[in-house]
């Protein structure tokens, strides 16, 4: 007997993120806060450097071959693109945290370490091709996010959000685990490839897949498993919301895609129809609920639910093109959604014991105060609504095209109609910024920290150009 040799180069970016997390954790020891002013941001700098390094490693490595680490983790093109989108979202969220976190917490090392651990969990989840690995990765990211959600401990809403997220999340983990157990029962294998090879049919696979859908559905905030999302998204510190609304979705979608592909023996029509109805329900519910929100953040939370519905369309299509579209949309979504949350975070006035939630009218008159910010926000809103030529439009185009191609035209119809509904509440924000009288607080100076400005600039640029330029990039990733 000898210990297995593992090719760690396959998970190099993940390792970089993990090691950075550990370094960040001891950053406080190396640079005690009180002793050295000006070095308070050392954890953030470290974390950002780690994320960028991981991103570069992913980018420069070229196409990933699909080699696996013991059949547990796979470095394939899908994982590569997921890496990129998660790292992008994480870096953008981190830029937001930079100036946001000091308003309410002194625990920087802990914050950034948990943040990086969540990132690592997402990256691992995207590479998981085995049930146990998948579950453990999912839990890493979930637990880190539960805590990050409640990180603003001076504020009751944060605690409530974290508790709800935790309870429902733990519940959903149970579903997922049960699903995995049933898969194992049916096939005696935990590796997805083996499960697929067994081609075992029958009740156990079906029930297992159903439970898996429920479990991942919770993480994706798919209706009717979305109840935690509005509270969690609203109560969490805004940078965390921005990051997790994209990162969790991305990783869970990849996992869902892999699982669905492995459960090949379950007739496609069965799970695809189930997913299609979930998708329809999700986008409709998310959009209708978003119409009536009075808080900007909560509105964006519901919009995020609706987008989970759109994203599911690509999985329903079940084709490589469908998932290419999902990945494409995730990139677009990372830009536009994080951008929107970035501006929401700038509009909040973070107090020490309570972050004043940005109401729907917080942006009123923004064009007069910070014209470029308003222009960027308008771009994010229009892109979220799917107006060309912004990134969101191309994302939807690809998603709906995949759906139409696989014969899900009615779902595409539902999708475009939902986009129209969503345009209404996105426009409300735009109306406020450009056409309404400034709100009562408009005379206050709106501070614009450099890091957040950079994040807004990057996301705005991405929203504007990604759709136009990146299309040739996304071909046949998911095969």
């Amino acid at each position, binding site marked *: 007997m000898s210990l297995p040799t*593992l090719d760690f180069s396959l998970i190099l970016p993940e390792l970089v993120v993990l090691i950075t997390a550990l370094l960040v954790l001891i950053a406080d020891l190396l640079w005690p806060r009180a002793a050295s002013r000006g070095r308070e941001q050392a954890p953030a700098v470290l974390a950002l450097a780690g994320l960028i390094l991981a991103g570069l490693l992913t980018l420069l490595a070229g196409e990933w071959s699909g080699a696996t680490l013991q059949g*547990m983790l796979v470095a394939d093109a899908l994982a590569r693109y997921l890496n990129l989108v998660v790292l992008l979202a994480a870096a953008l969220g981190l830029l937001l945290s930079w100036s946001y976190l000091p308003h309410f917490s002194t625990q920087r090392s802990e914050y950034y370490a*948990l943040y990086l651990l969540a990132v690592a969990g997402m990256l691992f989840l995207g590479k998981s091709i085995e049930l146990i690995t998948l579950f453990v990765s999912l839990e890493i990211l979930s637990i880190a996010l539960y805590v990050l959600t409640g990180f603003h401990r001076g504020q009751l809403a944060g605690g409530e959000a974290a508790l709800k997220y935790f309870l429902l999340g733990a519940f959903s983990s149970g579903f997922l685990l049960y699903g995995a157990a049933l898969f194992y*029962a049916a*096939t*005696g294998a935990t590796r997805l490839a083996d499960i697929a090879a067994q081609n075992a049919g029958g*009740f*156990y696979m079906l029930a297992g897949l159903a439970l898996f859908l429920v479990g991942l559905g919770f993480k994706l905030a798919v209706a009717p498993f979305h109840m935690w999302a509005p509270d969690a998204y609203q109560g969490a510190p805004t940078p965390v919301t921005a990051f997790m609304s994209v990162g969790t979705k991305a990783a869970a979608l990849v996992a869902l895609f892999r699982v669905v592909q492995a459960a090949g023996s379950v007739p496609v029509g069965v799970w695809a129809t189930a997913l299609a109805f979930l998708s329809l329900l999700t986008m409709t519910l998310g959009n209708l609920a978003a119409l009536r929100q009075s808080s900007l953040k909560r509105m964006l939370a519901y919009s995020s639910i609706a987008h989970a519905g759109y994203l599911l369309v690509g999985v329903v299509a079940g084709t490589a093109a469908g998932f290419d579209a999902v990945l494409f949309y995730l990139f677009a979504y990372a830009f536009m959604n994080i951008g929107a949350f970035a501006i929401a975070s700038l509009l909040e006035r973070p107090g*020490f014991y309570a972050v004043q939630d940005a109401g729907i009218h917080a942006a009123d008159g923004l064009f007069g105060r910070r014209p470029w910010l308003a222009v960027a926000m308008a771009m994010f809103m229009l892109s979220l609504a799917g107006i060309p030529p912004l990134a969101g439009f191309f994302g939807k185009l690809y998603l709906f095209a995949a759906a139409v191609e696989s014969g899900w035209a009615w779902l595409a119809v539902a999708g475009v109609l939902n986009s129209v509904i969503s345009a209404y509440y996105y426009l409300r924000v735009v109306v406020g910024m450009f056409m309404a009288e400034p709100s009562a607080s408009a005379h206050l100076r709106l501070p614009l920290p450099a890091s957040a400005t950079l994040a807004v600039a990057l996301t705005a640029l991405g929203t504007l150009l990604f759709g136009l330029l990146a299309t040739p990039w996304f071909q046949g990733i998911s095969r």
Partner: protein
Amino acid sequence: MPLLFAALALIALVGAAGVLLSRNPVYSALSLLLNFVAFAVMYVMLSAQFLGVVQIIVYAGAIVVLFLFVVMLIGGNLPALGRGRRAYVRAAGVILAALFLLALLFGLARPLPNGLAAVGAPDGGSVQALGLALYVDHIVPFELASILLLTAMLGGIVLARRYQAPPKD
């Protein structure tokens, strides 16, 4: 052996019932302990000694003790559990339990699925077999689990610390 199994099963059932029926949280916890121990012995009987012992160390030795710790810390004057619960909640519970029982019976009535038929190799639960499974076959999720624990620990520390607002400047 079947006799021993029956006895253990009975103990486990009594323990489980005790968890549900006890009005006193301490008794509930102790019933749970009984249940755990019965299962530990069953694991040993299935030649999964390691699992049996770990069941005792983790569940009996740590988790139930922490339950008790918390119950005592909160105080002895806990309102008796299960009072004031609505009728429909009870009904829902009963119905769900019945459904679960049905599902179990359904599962048992069917032939064993392929995956489970292969399981149960002799000595599959020995330390050696388990070690091989953990450190050779499943080393990746095993290592990931260490990250998970680190995350949980860090999270626990963050939440347990007294909140300190940053200084105003």
